[in-house]
């Protein structure tokens, strides 16, 4: 079975939100309110239990060649955010029920019939993707359209994207494509174009890569995401030391007390 990935190219995104709509329709994701956030044309703010694709509207300081001629008007780029489907997924490692699994396509899939709503994946995700759905109590996130991939179909968001800003395919070829695209953008003068795939972090790379212009932080993409399993050794060592201290301390205290003649 081939390992797949998303490549989301913000330089091609037109902010139409077709991916959001397609995702909601196919996956029957509940609506997430029709309120504007007040930040550009963003109405959901972030990915969450009811927002599996989220188009970011990144208004940045004016920059020549971006966002029109007016130096007073912000440059404006769009980027469709999604679950990163990490190579070392914090949510998957943390899940105590085995509800979150790695699929044969390399994606991270949360089985809703097994999730018991313990909420541990919510605090284990370094990208703030998984969220508990109020009223339901279970956690939800992007499925990487596992059901569609199973029968050879492209995920709903990628299929609906009118500009091929969201591309879907075999991960190695897509990675190559991403690097070529960045080089192409550089050649065209967009020297701030970069590829974000968290490959150098403990997350070990993602199955959702992003081509963005400028600093990824403006897109709420963390520069150093950490898979929380990196803290396990430290924490369990501390736990073992605490246990040893408790046994040792109690033994000394009770033994010393026994030897006292006054008792």
């Amino acid at each position: 079975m081939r390992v797949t990935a998303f490549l989301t190219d913000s330089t091609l995104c037109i902010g139409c939100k077709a991916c959001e709509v397609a995702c909601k329709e196919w996956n029957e994701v509940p609506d997430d309110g029709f309120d504007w956030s007040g930040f550009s044309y963003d109405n959901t703010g972030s990915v969450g239990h009811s927002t599996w694709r989220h188009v970011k509207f990144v208004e940045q300081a004016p920059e020549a060649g971006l966002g029109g001629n007016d130096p007073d008007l912000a440059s404006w780029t769009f980027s469709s955010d999604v679950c990163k489907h990490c190579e070392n997924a914090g949510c998957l490692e943390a899940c105590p029920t085995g509800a979150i699994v790695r699929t044969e396509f390399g994606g991270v899939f949360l089985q809703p019939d097994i999730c018991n709503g313990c909420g541990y994946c919510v605090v284990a995700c370094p990208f703030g993707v998984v969220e508990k759905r109020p009223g339901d109590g279970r956690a939800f996130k992007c499925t990487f359209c596992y059901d569609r991939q199973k029968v050879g179909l492209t995920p709903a968001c990628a299929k609906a994207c009118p500009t091929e800003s969201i591309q879907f395919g075999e991960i190695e070829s897509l990675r190559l494509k991403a690097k070529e695209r960045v080089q192409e953008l550089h050649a065209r003068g967009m020297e701030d174009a970069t590829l974000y795939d968290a490959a150098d972090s403990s997350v070990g790379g993602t199955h959702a890569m992003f081509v963005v212009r400028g600093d990824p932080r403006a897109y709420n993409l963390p520069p150093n995401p950490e898979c929380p399993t990196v803290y396990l050794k430290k924490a369990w060592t501390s736990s073992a030391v605490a246990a040893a201290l408790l046994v040792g301390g109690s033994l000394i205290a009770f033994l010393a007390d026994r030897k006292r003649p006054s008792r």
Partner: protein
Amino acid sequence: MSNPSPPQDPREERLAEIRREAEREGTVKQRGVRPAGAPFPIASAETGYYGIPLLKEPAWTWQIPLYFFVGGAAGAAAVMGAIANATGADRRLVRDARFIAASGAVLSPALLIADLGRPERFLAMMRVFKPRSPMSMGVWTLLGFSGAASATAFAAFLRGRYGPSLPLRVLENAGEAASLAFGLPFSNYAGVLIGATAIPVWNENAGNLPMHFAASGVGSAVGLLELAGHQKNRALQAIGLGAAIFECWEGYRIESRQLPKLDPLKHGPSGRLVRAGGVLSGPVPLLLRLISGFGKGPRSQNLRRIAGLSAIVGSIITRYAWVQAGHASARDWREPLGNNDKTDG
């Protein structure tokens, strides 16, 4: 139909002007019109994505911090009870420690299940045994502890009622050994649970949270035993002193480190809670215990009871405070973007 004439509007005139400039120069250099409300908030490396938090806040209900407290106290009580029994300490102390452990063994799963919303969901926890998931390890520890601690208390109860017998003695001793084994991780694993997460204030403390939570659990177990009538026991006094000293050191550790990541432990509502919990768990019981050491009468015993009560209240507040600090930490959009280090050298 006649061709409508263009409206004589200043905006239309402006468009015509721009068009003329474009035709003449090949580009438009004039300034545009400043829209109402400008300048708008921007997304940037410094301001992140409009300052919208990246991380999600913990989704736990109030039952979870209470469960941390109950589990910590029960686990520590089981360990102390088993060691007291092995060293031949007061029988009543052993009995009461077992009772606290068994009560915690019943309460803990109830609290955990209440947080899940639907009781049958707890069964999904028993599908897998997953060493890399602190939540999975914690649930198995809880199950082992619950079984062991309640079996011990039950066997001891039957022995008291119907007299000693071999099967009861085997059950009681095996139960106690298992309570000791499970009680040790049970008294501190909550520290591992929240330490190994993506929440900055928690994972920054991954190396000391288990010890901190263990000391908190020990302090409250000692307090519960003292309130149950063991305010004269010297071993408990010594253990209580040890826990209070550790909590003082933990407080010093938090306050002395100047890291923006630790702000939720010092500032805002969660910071006030952490400090309140810390004072009640550390300095207050430490002082009261030291003062009580000078006397022997009912007054010094009362001081020890107050010290115990203070440690219990402090422990409850501490667990709640750390969860609240996690909320505050998740809301801080700067931290995961690494933007705090620059502003706060």
